[in-house]
């Protein structure tokens, strides 16, 4: 029994990512055509060379036809999958395995979501018919449970904790302001964030990620073929996906200060990639900042900060673009919104740009100094009952 991983067996040789935002003028099909064409052009691969497709979308379509119809694919295998907010990452993971095992030479992972068409705040409801006994908490409310629990456990006063939350939102908007693909491209003052209308618990509007439309795609080949397509491929070092037993909400031992699923998937990914000290080895991390307390807790769960210290590290700027470890250099979910199926691949797109030195004004300095690894992370669900995905990609095959 082991999680062996597929370190350095496959590589990303092309990527595409649409602008995220209120794409009123573009359909789901339009977004899929846009991101897939960008990815194919980036790898200089014609679409008929792609052997198989993995499409991630939660709400925006069902079955492989959602992709094959707009792209007019000629009788190719297309898998459509979802895994909550890790949906885009799951498309990528499965496409990687298909290439690694030799089933296909070239695969495309593509994610899409069109949330704005629903006309509501937040996410549409989904799910099978139920007995009506589940508490109808909104997503911000479930994640807001982290704030008082963390503050109490580590003796952080509420005002200081709120300051750390605010700084995360401020930092991600600051990064997003430098990103032409982001939904929100403006810096937001800390006092505007701190005083934004309350949504749930300590969370204001600016502590929540936005709602947007978007799509992103990656072309995956065997590692040994990578340099046929590009001078600067990204090699897949680790892929870990964990579904927890979802016992947090019914287990008095769960204290709402950590995501055990993230701890497990990070440990698995670091073992696959051979990473001992992520904070010292990674150039950057794209993490699932659905709400600001989530990012704060993730800093500890991903091993970027000691338990009980993330709030201090955040306030000290450790995870700023110019900090010791840049977290969400592209602006994160805060700046991009969260089109579920696309987000995981959007994160990989930032790793693609940064490790190749193509991130322009937000280029991370540590890449030039020799850091070659990037991490992406998604979680889906709620504290105590979630799925978690961690990938590590690198610009060098070891």
């Amino acid at each position, binding site marked *: 029994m082991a999680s062996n991983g597929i370190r350095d067996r496959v590589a990303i040789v092309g990527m595409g990512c649409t602008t995220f935002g209120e794409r009123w003028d573009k359909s789901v099909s339009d977004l899929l055509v846009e991101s897939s064409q960008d990815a194919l052009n980036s790898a200089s691969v014609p679409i008929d060379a792609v052997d198989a497709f993995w499409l991630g979308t939660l709400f925006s379509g069902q079955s492989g036809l959602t992709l094959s119809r707009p792209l007019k694919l000629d009788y190719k295998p297309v898998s459509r999958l979802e895994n909550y907010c890790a949906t885009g990452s799951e498309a990528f993971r499965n496409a990687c395995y298909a290439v690694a095992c030799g089933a296909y030479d070239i695969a495309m992972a593509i994610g899409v979501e069109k949330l704005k068409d629903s006309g509501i*705040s937040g996410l549409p409801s989904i799910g099978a018919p139920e007995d*009506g006994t589940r508490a*109808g*908490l909104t997503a911000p409310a479930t994640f807001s449970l982290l704030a008082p629990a963390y503050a109490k456990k580590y003796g952080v006063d509420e005002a200081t904790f709120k300051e750390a939350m605010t700084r995360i939102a401020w930092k991600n908007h600051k990064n997003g302001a430098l990103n032409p693909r982001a939904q929100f491209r403006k810096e937001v003052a800390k006092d505007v964030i701190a005083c934004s209308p309350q949504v749930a618990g300590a969370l204001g509007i600016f502590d929540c990620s936005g709602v947007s439309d978007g799509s992103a795609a990656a072309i995956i080949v065997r590692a040994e073929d990578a340099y046929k397509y590009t001078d600067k491929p990204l090699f897949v070092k680790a892929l870990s996906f964990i579904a927890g037993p979802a016992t947090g909400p019914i287990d008095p031992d769960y204290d709402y200060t950590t995501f055990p699923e993230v701890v497990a998937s990070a440990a698995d990914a670091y073992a696959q990639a051979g990473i001992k000290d992520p904070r010292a080895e990674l150039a950057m991390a794209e993490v699932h900042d659905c709400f600001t307390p989530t990012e704060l807790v993730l800093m500890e769960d991903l091993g970027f900060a000691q338990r009980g210290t993330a709030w201090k590290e955040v306030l000290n700027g450790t995870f700023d673009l110019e900090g010791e470890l840049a977290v969400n250099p592209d602006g994160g979910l805060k700046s991009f919104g969260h089109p579920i199926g696309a987000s995981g691949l959007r994160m990989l797109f930032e790793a693609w740009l940064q490790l190749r030195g193509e991130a322009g004004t937000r280029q991370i300095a540590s890449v030039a100094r020799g850091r070659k690894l990037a991490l992406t992370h998604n979680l889906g669900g709620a504290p105590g009952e979630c799925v978690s995905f961690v990938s590590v990609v690198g610009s060098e095959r070891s």
Partner: protein
Amino acid sequence: MNGIVAYGAYVPYFHLDRKAIGEALGSGGGKGTRAVASYDEDTTSMGVEAARAALRGAPRCAPAAVYFATAAPAYLDKTNATAIHAALALDESAMAFDMLGSIRSAAGALRAATDASRSTLAVLSDIRTGLPGGTDEREGGDAGAAFLLAAGDADTPLLAEPVAAASVTAEFLERWRVPGEPASRQWEERFGEHAYAPLAEAAIASALKQAGVTGPALASVLVAGSHGRANKRAAAAAGAKPAALGDDLTGSVGNTGAAHAGLLLADALDRAQADDLMMVVSLADGCDVTIWRATAALARGRQRVPVAAQVAAGGTVPYATFLTWRGFLKREPPRRPDPQPPAAPPALRAEAWKFGFTGSRCQACGTRHLPPTRVCLKCRAVDRMTPERMADVPATIATYTVDRLAYSLSPPVVVGVLDFEGGGRFTCELTDVDPAAVRIGNRVEMTFRRLMTAHEVHNYFWKARPLRGA
């Protein structure tokens, strides 16, 4: 013939200050308050709360039947008493019947339970509505009351025994409502007095005769009826001492319709001494009179939280909120997905959990589970569970949040992560609570509620509220 072996009343947490009506509408209003069923309550859920209060007093006497009476049923065609039956986790062999539609159905339920040859729970509940600015809105009230009637034995002694019961029936048009209408209609004020007075006099005289006593022997005269002047005439007809005519709760709770006679009786039982005679007079399309004698066991068998304490506690509801809850003020909904009704098959499969709040306990390691699961969350043992009812287990708030985005008729939604005494955790909504007063460590108890209604399906389940009478 049965006597009362347990009783309970339920006065909802919220009350409306009557002067708020005048302030909003420019006229009407008046003095005092009226009890208001919250946005998440209906006659069925209030009936459950009253019945739970009653059954706590008779742990060794399971009802063999439930009669549920209300003038404001949550459902027609479908029995409402079955939800009460399920929420009380009664055995499936226990019967459950509705007696619906009229205020008088309550007198019938109580009388039928008294006459029954088996232990019978009579549950009386009502929500009184009236058009904004009208008398019924102002003078009405919402409440529930429940009585367990049985033969009585050493384990479950009689708290009060019936010494007389008399009824007079007549057909006349004094108060009526067509199904679905938000308010009832009433003939002119003086007619009701004319119609009721002789009926009351006849029934009261008959009951006193049966009991072999005269008016001055009565410790209390409890008159319930929707016609104030007729009620006064009936009280006078009893010929009791002035001290026997106590507070009829119309000033603080309001006239609770089908629940009112029961509410007054519960209030009297909260205070009565052994051998006190209590005459209950119910004026509704006739007159039903019962005289009860309190027993020596009553002092040890009273409900945990008396009616007076329930009336004294609670919070004020703003008039606009009251109108919203009762459907007289249609408000802009949030831009959120429409709430979905529960589906019938999953609700049936989960009946013990959804209605009875019955979780499970792992026989391998003792861990409690809410909801029940097949695989233990701690030791992963499979199918080693036994059911465990959690409805009456208090809990402590482990953490909480105030959700200002979630759909609710009464935002914000307050949600607590609850740790139950003796183990078990569950996350659910808090109700009857001031969001600003919630703290980690607060003690709460479960309460049966109607979470919402979607597509004409009422979604019943449990919430937590601050411990009553604590």
